[in-house]
Protein backbone atom coordinates (compact mmCIF):
# COMPACT_ATOMS: atom_id res chain seq x y z
CA UNK A 1 0.00 0.00 0.00
CA UNK A 2 1.18 3.53 -0.71
CA UNK A 3 2.00 5.20 2.62
CA UNK A 4 -0.63 7.75 3.59
CA UNK A 5 0.89 10.97 4.89
CA UNK A 6 -0.99 13.16 7.34
CA UNK A 7 -1.25 16.93 6.70
CA UNK A 8 1.55 19.06 8.14
CA UNK A 9 1.12 19.55 11.90
CA UNK A 10 -1.13 16.51 12.48
CA UNK A 11 -0.02 13.20 13.92
CA UNK A 12 -1.16 9.87 15.30
CA UNK A 13 -0.54 9.16 18.97
CA UNK A 14 0.56 5.52 18.93
CA UNK A 15 0.07 3.14 21.90
CA UNK A 16 2.70 4.25 24.46
CA UNK A 17 2.33 7.95 23.75
CA UNK A 18 -1.47 7.80 23.64
CA UNK A 19 -1.49 5.99 27.01
CA UNK A 20 0.67 8.70 28.58
CA UNK A 21 -1.51 11.45 27.12
CA UNK A 22 -4.65 9.78 28.39
CA UNK A 23 -3.18 9.26 31.85
CA UNK A 24 -1.98 12.85 32.23
CA UNK A 25 -5.33 14.13 31.01
CA UNK A 26 -7.14 11.97 33.59
CA UNK A 27 -4.82 13.07 36.42
CA UNK A 28 -5.47 16.71 35.55
CA UNK A 29 -9.26 16.44 35.36
CA UNK A 30 -9.49 14.31 38.50
CA UNK A 31 -7.39 16.74 40.52
CA UNK A 32 -9.39 19.73 39.33
CA UNK A 33 -12.71 17.99 40.04
CA UNK A 34 -11.57 17.17 43.57
CA UNK A 35 -10.77 20.83 44.08
CA UNK A 36 -14.29 21.89 43.15
CA UNK A 37 -13.80 22.70 39.47
CA UNK A 38 -16.72 21.40 37.41
CA UNK A 39 -15.77 19.97 34.06
CA UNK A 40 -17.39 21.48 30.96
CA UNK A 41 -17.10 20.40 27.33
CA UNK A 42 -17.79 23.15 24.83
CA UNK A 43 -17.98 22.13 21.16
CA UNK A 44 -15.07 22.09 18.75
CA UNK A 45 -16.90 24.32 16.28
CA UNK A 46 -18.96 27.47 16.74
CA UNK A 47 -20.23 30.24 14.54
CA UNK A 48 -17.51 32.84 14.03
CA UNK A 49 -19.57 35.48 15.81
CA UNK A 50 -19.72 33.54 19.08
CA UNK A 51 -16.22 32.02 18.92
CA UNK A 52 -14.56 35.41 18.62
CA UNK A 53 -16.98 37.42 20.74
CA UNK A 54 -14.13 38.72 22.91
CA UNK A 55 -12.40 39.77 19.65
CA UNK A 56 -8.89 38.57 19.93
CA UNK A 57 -7.21 39.23 16.59
CA UNK A 58 -4.47 36.65 17.08
CA UNK A 59 -6.92 33.82 17.67
CA UNK A 60 -9.20 35.08 14.95
CA UNK A 61 -6.49 34.96 12.31
CA UNK A 62 -5.14 31.66 13.55
CA UNK A 63 -8.37 29.65 13.39
CA UNK A 64 -9.60 27.20 10.76
CA UNK A 65 -12.94 28.06 9.13
CA UNK A 66 -15.60 25.88 7.59
CA UNK A 67 -18.91 26.75 6.00
CA UNK A 68 -22.02 25.34 7.66
CA UNK A 69 -24.03 23.84 4.77
CA UNK A 70 -27.19 24.04 6.93
CA UNK A 71 -27.22 27.69 7.92
CA UNK A 72 -24.83 28.84 5.15
CA UNK A 73 -22.97 30.72 7.88
CA UNK A 74 -19.22 30.67 8.48
CA UNK A 75 -18.07 28.63 11.45
CA UNK A 76 -14.71 28.64 13.23
CA UNK A 77 -12.83 25.76 14.85
CA UNK A 78 -11.64 26.79 18.31
CA UNK A 79 -8.00 27.69 18.85
CA UNK A 80 -8.33 28.56 22.58
CA UNK A 81 -10.87 27.02 24.95
CA UNK A 82 -10.53 29.89 27.47
CA UNK A 83 -12.61 32.07 25.14
CA UNK A 84 -15.38 29.46 25.10
CA UNK A 85 -15.35 29.32 28.90
CA UNK A 86 -15.72 33.10 28.94
CA UNK A 87 -18.73 32.78 26.61
CA UNK A 88 -20.31 30.14 28.88
CA UNK A 89 -19.74 32.18 32.02
CA UNK A 90 -21.65 35.17 30.71
CA UNK A 91 -24.18 33.06 28.76
CA UNK A 92 -25.52 29.67 29.82
CA UNK A 93 -23.86 29.87 33.26
CA UNK A 94 -24.47 33.59 33.86
CA UNK A 95 -26.82 32.85 36.75
CA UNK A 96 -24.72 30.15 38.41
CA UNK A 97 -23.42 31.14 41.84
CA UNK A 98 -20.06 32.92 41.95
CA UNK A 99 -17.24 32.18 42.17
CA UNK A 100 -17.76 29.75 39.32
CA UNK A 101 -14.97 27.20 39.02
CA UNK A 102 -14.68 25.35 35.71
CA UNK A 103 -12.13 23.01 34.19
CA UNK A 104 -11.79 21.58 30.69
CA UNK A 105 -9.74 19.44 28.39
CA UNK A 106 -10.11 19.33 24.63
CA UNK A 107 -8.45 19.64 21.28
CA UNK A 108 -7.81 22.98 19.66
CA UNK A 109 -6.68 23.70 16.11
CA UNK A 110 -4.31 26.40 14.93
CA UNK A 111 -3.68 27.40 11.32
CA UNK A 112 -0.04 27.86 12.28
CA UNK A 113 1.52 27.08 15.62
CA UNK A 114 4.85 28.59 16.64
CA UNK A 115 8.22 27.59 15.25
CA UNK A 116 9.07 25.41 18.25
CA UNK A 117 5.88 23.40 18.08
CA UNK A 118 4.64 22.64 14.60
CA UNK A 119 1.54 20.69 15.76
CA UNK A 120 -1.67 22.21 14.48
CA UNK A 121 -3.89 20.01 16.63
CA UNK A 122 -3.09 20.39 20.32
CA UNK A 123 -4.88 19.32 23.50
CA UNK A 124 -5.51 22.20 25.90
CA UNK A 125 -6.21 21.51 29.57
CA UNK A 126 -7.10 24.29 31.98
CA UNK A 127 -9.06 25.72 34.89
CA UNK A 128 -10.79 29.06 35.35
CA UNK A 129 -12.44 30.88 38.26
CA UNK A 130 -15.07 33.37 37.15
CA UNK A 131 -16.41 36.17 39.35
CA UNK A 132 -13.58 36.75 41.82
CA UNK A 133 -12.60 39.63 44.05
CA UNK A 134 -9.43 41.06 42.62
CA UNK A 135 -6.00 39.72 43.59
CA UNK A 136 -7.16 36.98 45.90
CA UNK A 137 -7.07 33.78 43.92
CA UNK A 138 -3.46 33.58 42.71
CA UNK A 139 -2.63 31.48 45.74
CA UNK A 140 -5.29 28.89 44.92
CA UNK A 141 -4.07 28.56 41.33
CA UNK A 142 -0.40 28.30 42.26
CA UNK A 143 -1.27 25.61 44.79
CA UNK A 144 -3.13 23.70 42.08
CA UNK A 145 -0.16 24.02 39.74
CA UNK A 146 2.23 22.75 42.42
CA UNK A 147 -0.08 19.82 43.12
CA UNK A 148 -0.57 18.86 39.47
CA UNK A 149 3.15 19.08 38.65
CA UNK A 150 3.98 16.91 41.66
CA UNK A 151 1.46 14.31 40.46
CA UNK A 152 2.98 14.42 36.97
CA UNK A 153 6.47 14.02 38.48
CA UNK A 154 7.74 17.25 36.95
CA UNK A 155 10.37 18.47 39.38
CA UNK A 156 12.05 21.87 39.31
CA UNK A 157 9.75 24.36 37.71
CA UNK A 158 9.71 28.14 37.69
CA UNK A 159 7.01 30.78 37.64
CA UNK A 160 7.51 34.00 35.74
CA UNK A 161 5.10 36.89 36.40
CA UNK A 162 4.40 39.76 34.05
CA UNK A 163 2.28 42.92 33.98
CA UNK A 164 0.15 42.79 30.82
CA UNK A 165 -1.38 46.26 31.30
CA UNK A 166 1.89 48.06 32.07
CA UNK A 167 2.24 49.06 28.43
CA UNK A 168 -1.15 50.84 28.56
CA UNK A 169 -0.04 52.78 31.65
CA UNK A 170 3.22 53.79 29.98
CA UNK A 171 1.26 54.82 26.90
CA UNK A 172 -0.98 57.02 29.07
CA UNK A 173 1.91 58.58 30.99
CA UNK A 174 3.85 59.50 27.88
CA UNK A 175 0.82 60.16 25.65
CA UNK A 176 2.29 57.93 22.94
CA UNK A 177 0.97 58.10 19.40
CA UNK A 178 -0.14 54.86 17.74
CA UNK A 179 3.07 54.75 15.72
CA UNK A 180 5.26 55.27 18.79
CA UNK A 181 3.29 52.64 20.71
CA UNK A 182 3.95 50.08 17.98
CA UNK A 183 7.64 51.03 18.00
CA UNK A 184 7.84 50.67 21.80
CA UNK A 185 6.06 47.31 21.68
CA UNK A 186 8.57 46.05 19.14
CA UNK A 187 11.39 47.25 21.39
CA UNK A 188 9.81 45.52 24.42
CA UNK A 189 9.46 42.33 22.41
CA UNK A 190 13.22 42.41 21.85
CA UNK A 191 14.29 43.81 25.23
CA UNK A 192 16.11 46.49 23.31
CA UNK A 193 16.00 50.19 24.25
CA UNK A 194 17.63 51.36 21.02
CA UNK A 195 15.88 54.38 19.54
CA UNK A 196 13.53 55.05 22.49
CA UNK A 197 15.58 58.14 23.40
CA UNK A 198 14.16 59.85 20.30
CA UNK A 199 10.64 59.67 21.74
CA UNK A 200 11.56 60.79 25.24
CA UNK A 201 14.63 60.65 27.44
CA UNK A 202 12.52 59.95 30.56
CA UNK A 203 10.79 57.09 28.73
CA UNK A 204 14.17 55.60 27.92
CA UNK A 205 15.13 55.73 31.61
CA UNK A 206 11.85 54.12 32.64
CA UNK A 207 12.25 51.33 30.08
CA UNK A 208 15.90 50.80 31.04
CA UNK A 209 14.94 50.31 34.71
CA UNK A 210 12.10 47.93 33.82
CA UNK A 211 14.35 46.04 31.47
CA UNK A 212 17.05 45.60 34.07
CA UNK A 213 14.44 44.23 36.49
CA UNK A 214 14.00 40.90 34.72
CA UNK A 215 14.88 37.77 36.67
CA UNK A 216 14.50 36.56 40.22
CA UNK A 217 11.89 38.65 42.05
CA UNK A 218 13.77 38.94 45.34
CA UNK A 219 16.83 40.37 43.56
CA UNK A 220 14.92 42.83 41.40
CA UNK A 221 12.28 44.20 43.73
CA UNK A 222 14.71 46.82 45.08
CA UNK A 223 15.17 48.20 41.59
CA UNK A 224 11.43 48.62 41.10
CA UNK A 225 10.83 50.00 44.57
CA UNK A 226 13.45 52.74 44.54
CA UNK A 227 12.87 54.20 41.08
CA UNK A 228 10.26 56.93 40.79
CA UNK A 229 7.99 56.04 37.88
CA UNK A 230 5.46 58.41 36.29
CA UNK A 231 1.93 58.42 37.74
CA UNK A 232 0.02 55.60 35.96
CA UNK A 233 3.08 53.38 35.63
CA UNK A 234 3.75 53.82 39.36
CA UNK A 235 0.19 52.66 40.20
CA UNK A 236 0.72 49.50 38.13
CA UNK A 237 4.13 48.84 39.69
CA UNK A 238 2.78 49.32 43.22
CA UNK A 239 -0.07 46.86 42.58
CA UNK A 240 2.35 44.37 41.11
CA UNK A 241 4.69 44.58 44.11
CA UNK A 242 1.78 44.07 46.53
CA UNK A 243 0.58 40.93 44.71
CA UNK A 244 4.10 39.56 44.29
CA UNK A 245 4.95 40.09 47.96
CA UNK A 246 1.85 38.14 48.94
CA UNK A 247 2.84 35.30 46.63
CA UNK A 248 6.45 35.23 47.87
CA UNK A 249 5.21 35.13 51.46
CA UNK A 250 3.05 32.07 50.81
CA UNK A 251 5.56 30.30 48.56
CA UNK A 252 9.02 31.22 49.86
CA UNK A 253 10.71 28.20 48.35
CA UNK A 254 9.31 28.46 44.83
CA UNK A 255 11.51 29.75 41.98
CA UNK A 256 9.71 33.03 41.25
CA UNK A 257 10.81 35.32 38.46
CA UNK A 258 9.47 38.55 37.01
CA UNK A 259 9.52 40.20 33.61
CA UNK A 260 7.67 43.53 33.78
CA UNK A 261 8.07 44.32 30.07
CA UNK A 262 6.76 41.14 28.49
CA UNK A 263 4.06 41.84 25.91
CA UNK A 264 0.91 39.79 26.46
CA UNK A 265 0.33 38.20 23.06
CA UNK A 266 -2.99 36.64 24.12
CA UNK A 267 -4.30 40.22 24.38
CA UNK A 268 -6.96 39.50 27.00
CA UNK A 269 -5.06 39.53 30.26
CA UNK A 270 -5.31 42.28 32.85
CA UNK A 271 -3.77 42.55 36.33
CA UNK A 272 -1.03 39.96 36.37
CA UNK A 273 -0.19 37.15 33.99
CA UNK A 274 2.18 34.28 34.56
CA UNK A 275 3.90 31.38 32.85
CA UNK A 276 5.23 28.17 34.32
CA UNK A 277 8.46 26.76 32.84
CA UNK A 278 10.21 23.44 33.31
CA UNK A 279 13.91 23.23 34.06
CA UNK A 280 14.41 22.36 30.38
CA UNK A 281 13.04 25.81 29.52
CA UNK A 282 9.74 24.42 28.18
CA UNK A 283 6.46 26.21 28.85
CA UNK A 284 4.09 24.09 30.97
CA UNK A 285 1.24 26.45 31.81
CA UNK A 286 0.27 30.05 31.25
CA UNK A 287 -2.44 32.06 32.90
CA UNK A 288 -3.51 35.23 34.63
CA UNK A 289 -6.30 37.65 35.35
CA UNK A 290 -8.78 38.74 32.70
CA UNK A 291 -12.16 40.41 32.48
CA UNK A 292 -15.32 39.11 30.84
CA UNK A 293 -17.37 42.28 30.55
CA UNK A 294 -17.36 43.49 34.16
CA UNK A 295 -16.54 40.22 35.82
CA UNK A 296 -13.02 39.55 37.13
CA UNK A 297 -11.68 36.11 36.31
CA UNK A 298 -8.45 34.19 36.69
CA UNK A 299 -7.27 30.93 35.22
CA UNK A 300 -4.51 28.90 33.71
CA UNK A 301 -4.12 26.39 30.94
CA UNK A 302 -1.43 24.33 29.27
CA UNK A 303 -0.83 22.04 26.35
CA UNK A 304 -0.94 18.33 27.02
CA UNK A 305 1.91 17.72 24.56
CA UNK A 306 4.33 19.82 26.64
CA UNK A 307 3.26 18.10 29.87
CA UNK A 308 3.75 14.70 28.24
CA UNK A 309 7.30 15.60 27.19
CA UNK A 310 8.32 16.82 30.64
CA UNK A 311 6.41 14.34 32.81
CA UNK A 312 8.22 11.35 34.29
CA UNK A 313 5.16 9.27 35.12
CA UNK A 314 5.09 5.65 34.05
CA UNK A 315 2.18 4.35 32.02
CA UNK A 316 2.52 0.60 32.55
CA UNK A 317 -0.09 -0.52 35.04
CA UNK A 318 1.20 -4.04 35.73
CA UNK A 319 3.06 -7.02 34.34
CA UNK A 320 1.78 -8.46 31.08
CA UNK A 321 0.74 -12.12 31.04
CA UNK A 322 0.02 -14.20 27.93
CA UNK A 323 -2.99 -16.46 28.44
CA UNK A 324 -3.95 -19.46 26.26
CA UNK A 325 -7.41 -19.55 24.75
CA UNK A 326 -9.04 -22.03 27.14
CA UNK A 327 -7.96 -20.51 30.48
CA UNK A 328 -11.03 -18.30 31.00
CA UNK A 329 -11.48 -19.19 34.69
CA UNK A 330 -8.01 -18.11 35.65
CA UNK A 331 -8.21 -14.74 33.98
CA UNK A 332 -10.45 -13.13 36.61
CA UNK A 333 -8.09 -13.87 39.46
CA UNK A 334 -5.11 -12.76 37.44
CA UNK A 335 -6.81 -9.45 36.60
CA UNK A 336 -7.49 -8.95 40.30
CA UNK A 337 -3.80 -9.40 40.98
CA UNK A 338 -3.02 -6.52 38.64
CA UNK A 339 -1.87 -8.45 35.59
CA UNK A 340 -2.47 -7.12 32.10
CA UNK A 341 -4.01 -9.97 30.13
CA UNK A 342 -2.94 -10.70 26.56
CA UNK A 343 -5.23 -13.41 25.18
CA UNK A 344 -4.36 -15.96 22.55
CA UNK A 345 -6.85 -16.14 19.70
CA UNK A 346 -6.43 -19.83 18.86
CA UNK A 347 -5.17 -23.04 20.40
CA UNK A 348 -1.38 -23.06 20.68
CA UNK A 349 1.25 -25.61 21.58
CA UNK A 350 3.47 -24.93 24.59
CA UNK A 351 6.28 -23.81 22.31
CA UNK A 352 3.97 -21.45 20.43
CA UNK A 353 2.70 -20.00 23.69
CA UNK A 354 6.27 -19.24 24.73
CA UNK A 355 7.07 -17.61 21.37
CA UNK A 356 3.88 -15.54 21.36
CA UNK A 357 4.43 -14.38 24.93
CA UNK A 358 7.84 -13.07 23.91
CA UNK A 359 6.47 -11.50 20.71
CA UNK A 360 3.87 -9.51 22.64
CA UNK A 361 6.43 -8.34 25.22
CA UNK A 362 4.77 -10.28 28.05
CA UNK A 363 6.56 -10.76 31.37
CA UNK A 364 4.80 -14.08 32.04
CA UNK A 365 2.66 -16.73 30.36
CA UNK A 366 0.13 -19.14 31.73
CA UNK A 367 0.62 -22.85 31.08
CA UNK A 368 -1.31 -25.62 32.80
CA UNK A 369 -2.57 -23.02 35.28
CA UNK A 370 0.96 -22.14 36.28
CA UNK A 371 2.47 -18.67 35.88
CA UNK A 372 5.80 -19.00 34.12
CA UNK A 373 8.29 -16.16 33.66
CA UNK A 374 9.28 -15.39 30.06
CA UNK A 375 12.99 -16.01 29.70
Amino acid at each position, binding site marked *: MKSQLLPEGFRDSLPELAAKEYKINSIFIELMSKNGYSIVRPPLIEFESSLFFLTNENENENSFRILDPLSQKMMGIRSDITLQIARLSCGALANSPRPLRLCYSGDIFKVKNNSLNLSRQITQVGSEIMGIEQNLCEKELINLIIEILAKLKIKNFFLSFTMPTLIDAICKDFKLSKKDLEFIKERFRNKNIYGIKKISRTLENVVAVLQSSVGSFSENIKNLKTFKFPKFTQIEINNFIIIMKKIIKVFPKLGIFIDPLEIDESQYHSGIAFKV*FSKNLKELFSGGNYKVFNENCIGFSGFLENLVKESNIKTNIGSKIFVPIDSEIDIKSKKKNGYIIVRAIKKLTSKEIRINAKLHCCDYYLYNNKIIKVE
Partner: protein
Amino acid sequence: MKKIIMAVPKGRILDELVPLLKKSKIIPEADFFDKKSRKLMFSTNNNDLSIIRVRAFDVATFVAFGAAHIGVAGDDVLTEFGYEEIYDVLDLKIGKCRLSIAKTIEKKKNNIGSQGHIMVATKYKNTVTNYFANKGIRAECIKLNGAVELAPRLGICSTIVDLVSTGRTIKENNLEECDVLLNITSKLIINKIAYKLMNEKITRILNKFKKTLNG
Protein backbone atom coordinates in the same frame (compact mmCIF):
# COMPACT_ATOMS: atom_id res chain seq x y z
CA MET B 1 21.55 26.60 37.44
CA LYS B 2 23.11 25.38 34.22
CA LYS B 3 26.05 26.83 32.25
CA ILE B 4 25.29 29.45 29.61
CA ILE B 5 25.82 28.19 26.07
CA MET B 6 26.61 30.76 23.39
CA ALA B 7 26.18 29.86 19.70
CA VAL B 8 28.54 31.65 17.33
CA PRO B 9 28.56 31.45 13.53
CA LYS B 10 31.42 29.92 11.57
CA GLY B 11 33.12 31.85 8.80
CA ARG B 12 33.22 35.53 7.97
CA ILE B 13 31.39 36.85 11.04
CA LEU B 14 33.55 34.79 13.37
CA ASP B 15 36.69 36.57 12.17
CA GLU B 16 35.14 39.86 13.26
CA LEU B 17 33.67 38.39 16.42
CA VAL B 18 36.91 36.98 17.85
CA PRO B 19 38.49 40.42 18.54
CA LEU B 20 35.20 41.53 20.11
CA LEU B 21 35.18 38.47 22.37
CA LYS B 22 38.77 39.12 23.39
CA LYS B 23 38.08 42.77 24.19
CA SER B 24 35.09 41.64 26.25
CA LYS B 25 37.42 39.31 28.16
CA ILE B 26 35.73 36.17 26.89
CA ILE B 27 38.59 33.87 25.91
CA PRO B 28 37.69 30.51 24.35
CA GLU B 29 40.00 27.51 24.76
CA ALA B 30 42.85 27.09 22.25
CA ASP B 31 40.99 24.47 20.13
CA PHE B 32 38.41 27.09 19.21
CA PHE B 33 40.95 28.87 16.99
CA ASP B 34 42.18 25.68 15.36
CA LYS B 35 40.19 25.33 12.14
CA LYS B 36 41.16 21.67 11.87
CA SER B 37 39.70 20.82 15.26
CA ARG B 38 36.59 18.62 15.05
CA LYS B 39 35.35 19.83 18.41
CA LEU B 40 31.96 21.57 18.34
CA MET B 41 31.72 22.77 21.93
CA PHE B 42 34.41 24.84 23.63
CA SER B 43 35.01 26.00 27.16
CA THR B 44 36.01 29.59 27.94
CA ASN B 45 37.93 31.41 30.67
CA ASN B 46 34.51 31.99 32.22
CA ASN B 47 33.35 28.88 34.09
CA ASP B 48 29.71 29.69 33.47
CA LEU B 49 30.06 30.00 29.69
CA SER B 50 30.60 27.50 26.86
CA ILE B 51 30.68 28.28 23.16
CA ILE B 52 29.33 26.21 20.28
CA ARG B 53 30.35 26.89 16.70
CA VAL B 54 27.58 26.30 14.14
CA ARG B 55 26.57 27.49 10.68
CA ALA B 56 25.42 31.11 10.60
CA PHE B 57 21.98 29.97 9.43
CA ASP B 58 21.62 27.63 12.42
CA VAL B 59 22.50 30.04 15.25
CA ALA B 60 18.97 31.42 15.50
CA THR B 61 17.51 27.90 15.53
CA PHE B 62 19.80 26.72 18.33
CA VAL B 63 18.86 29.76 20.42
CA ALA B 64 15.12 29.62 19.65
CA PHE B 65 14.92 26.03 20.82
CA GLY B 66 16.88 26.83 23.98
CA ALA B 67 19.72 24.47 23.00
CA ALA B 68 21.95 27.54 23.20
CA HIS B 69 20.93 30.39 25.50
CA ILE B 70 22.59 33.27 23.68
CA GLY B 71 24.05 33.66 20.21
CA VAL B 72 25.35 35.94 17.49
CA ALA B 73 23.25 36.16 14.34
CA GLY B 74 22.84 38.57 11.44
CA ASP B 75 19.61 40.40 10.61
CA ASP B 76 19.35 38.28 7.46
CA VAL B 77 19.03 35.09 9.53
CA LEU B 78 16.72 36.69 12.12
CA THR B 79 14.39 38.04 9.42
CA GLU B 80 14.38 34.81 7.45
CA PHE B 81 13.34 32.67 10.43
CA GLY B 82 11.31 35.28 12.33
CA TYR B 83 11.53 33.27 15.57
CA GLU B 84 9.33 34.76 18.29
CA GLU B 85 11.33 32.97 20.97
CA ILE B 86 14.35 35.23 20.61
CA TYR B 87 15.23 38.67 21.98
CA ASP B 88 17.46 40.70 19.72
CA VAL B 89 19.06 42.80 22.44
CA LEU B 90 22.23 44.34 21.15
CA ASP B 91 23.71 45.48 17.85
CA LEU B 92 27.30 44.20 17.83
CA LYS B 93 28.10 46.40 14.81
CA ILE B 94 30.04 43.62 13.08
CA GLY B 95 29.28 41.58 9.95
CA LYS B 96 28.03 44.65 8.09
CA CYS B 97 26.53 43.88 4.70
CA ARG B 98 23.21 44.11 2.87
CA LEU B 99 20.67 41.75 1.39
CA SER B 100 20.14 42.95 -2.16
CA ILE B 101 18.27 42.17 -5.33
CA ALA B 102 20.51 41.83 -8.35
CA LYS B 103 19.52 41.34 -11.97
CA THR B 104 21.18 40.76 -15.25
CA ILE B 105 21.96 44.08 -16.88
CA GLU B 106 19.46 43.52 -19.72
CA LYS B 107 16.67 42.58 -17.27
CA LYS B 108 17.25 45.59 -15.06
CA LYS B 109 15.74 47.77 -17.74
CA ASN B 110 12.38 46.04 -17.22
CA ASN B 111 10.79 47.49 -14.13
CA ILE B 112 10.04 44.85 -11.42
CA GLY B 113 6.81 46.62 -10.52
CA SER B 114 5.34 45.92 -13.92
CA GLN B 115 5.40 42.16 -13.32
CA GLY B 116 2.91 40.16 -11.25
CA HIS B 117 5.19 37.18 -10.96
CA ILE B 118 8.92 36.75 -10.60
CA MET B 119 11.43 33.91 -10.29
CA VAL B 120 14.24 34.51 -7.82
CA ALA B 121 17.26 32.39 -6.95
CA THR B 122 18.07 32.84 -3.25
CA LYS B 123 18.85 31.27 0.09
CA TYR B 124 16.30 33.61 1.76
CA LYS B 125 12.96 32.20 0.66
CA ASN B 126 10.72 33.72 3.36
CA THR B 127 12.32 37.16 3.30
CA VAL B 128 12.11 37.34 -0.48
CA THR B 129 8.53 36.04 -0.70
CA ASN B 130 7.36 38.59 1.91
CA TYR B 131 9.25 41.47 0.35
CA PHE B 132 7.69 40.93 -3.07
CA ALA B 133 4.26 40.12 -1.61
CA ASN B 134 4.25 43.61 -0.06
CA LYS B 135 4.70 44.97 -3.56
CA GLY B 136 1.88 42.81 -4.87
CA ILE B 137 4.23 40.45 -6.70
CA ARG B 138 4.20 36.68 -6.33
CA ALA B 139 7.82 35.55 -6.05
CA GLU B 140 8.72 31.96 -6.71
CA CYS B 141 12.03 31.12 -5.09
CA ILE B 142 14.59 28.68 -6.33
CA LYS B 143 16.54 27.73 -3.24
CA LEU B 144 20.30 27.79 -3.72
CA ASN B 145 22.74 27.51 -0.84
CA GLY B 146 25.74 29.13 -2.48
CA ALA B 147 27.11 30.52 -5.74
CA VAL B 148 23.74 32.20 -6.23
CA GLU B 149 25.33 34.67 -8.67
CA LEU B 150 25.78 31.84 -11.17
CA ALA B 151 22.03 31.32 -11.54
CA PRO B 152 21.37 34.20 -14.00
CA ARG B 153 24.55 33.51 -15.95
CA LEU B 154 23.59 29.88 -16.53
CA GLY B 155 20.00 30.65 -17.33
CA ILE B 156 18.17 29.45 -14.17
CA CYS B 157 16.51 32.84 -13.71
CA SER B 158 17.38 36.49 -14.16
CA THR B 159 16.90 37.78 -10.60
CA ILE B 160 18.77 36.85 -7.44
CA VAL B 161 18.65 37.98 -3.81
CA ASP B 162 21.86 37.52 -1.86
CA LEU B 163 24.23 39.10 0.64
CA VAL B 164 26.38 41.88 -0.77
CA SER B 165 29.28 43.48 1.03
CA THR B 166 31.62 45.07 -1.54
CA GLY B 167 29.51 44.28 -4.60
CA ARG B 168 32.46 42.74 -6.44
CA THR B 169 31.00 39.27 -6.95
CA ILE B 170 27.87 40.82 -8.41
CA LYS B 171 29.78 42.95 -10.89
CA GLU B 172 32.10 40.13 -11.91
CA ASN B 173 29.10 38.02 -12.82
CA ASN B 174 27.55 40.68 -15.05
CA LEU B 175 24.80 41.55 -12.57
CA GLU B 176 23.61 44.88 -11.26
CA GLU B 177 22.38 45.57 -7.75
CA CYS B 178 18.97 47.20 -8.01
CA ASP B 179 17.40 47.30 -4.55
CA VAL B 180 18.36 46.69 -0.93
CA LEU B 181 15.97 44.49 1.06
CA LEU B 182 17.78 44.72 4.35
CA ASN B 183 20.80 46.42 5.88
CA ILE B 184 22.52 43.87 8.04
CA THR B 185 24.70 43.80 11.14
CA SER B 186 25.16 40.98 13.64
CA LYS B 187 23.08 41.03 16.78
CA LEU B 188 23.47 39.46 20.19
CA ILE B 189 20.37 37.32 20.59
CA ILE B 190 18.97 35.67 23.72
CA ASN B 191 16.44 32.89 24.27
CA LYS B 192 13.36 34.43 25.90
CA ILE B 193 12.90 31.87 28.65
CA ALA B 194 16.62 31.71 29.43
CA TYR B 195 16.62 35.50 29.75
CA LYS B 196 14.08 35.24 32.57
CA LEU B 197 15.43 32.21 34.38
CA MET B 198 19.17 32.77 33.94
CA ASN B 199 19.05 36.54 33.87
CA GLU B 200 21.91 37.25 36.23
CA LYS B 201 24.49 35.24 34.30
CA ILE B 202 23.22 36.41 30.91
CA THR B 203 23.18 40.09 31.96
CA ARG B 204 26.79 39.75 33.12
CA ILE B 205 27.82 38.59 29.63
CA LEU B 206 25.58 41.17 27.94
CA ASN B 207 27.17 43.95 29.99
CA LYS B 208 30.66 42.82 28.96
CA PHE B 209 29.68 43.28 25.31
CA LYS B 210 27.96 46.60 26.03
CA LYS B 211 31.05 47.88 27.80
CA THR B 212 33.31 46.92 24.90
CA LEU B 213 30.99 48.49 22.32
CA ASN B 214 30.63 51.73 24.26
CA GLY B 215 34.40 51.92 24.64
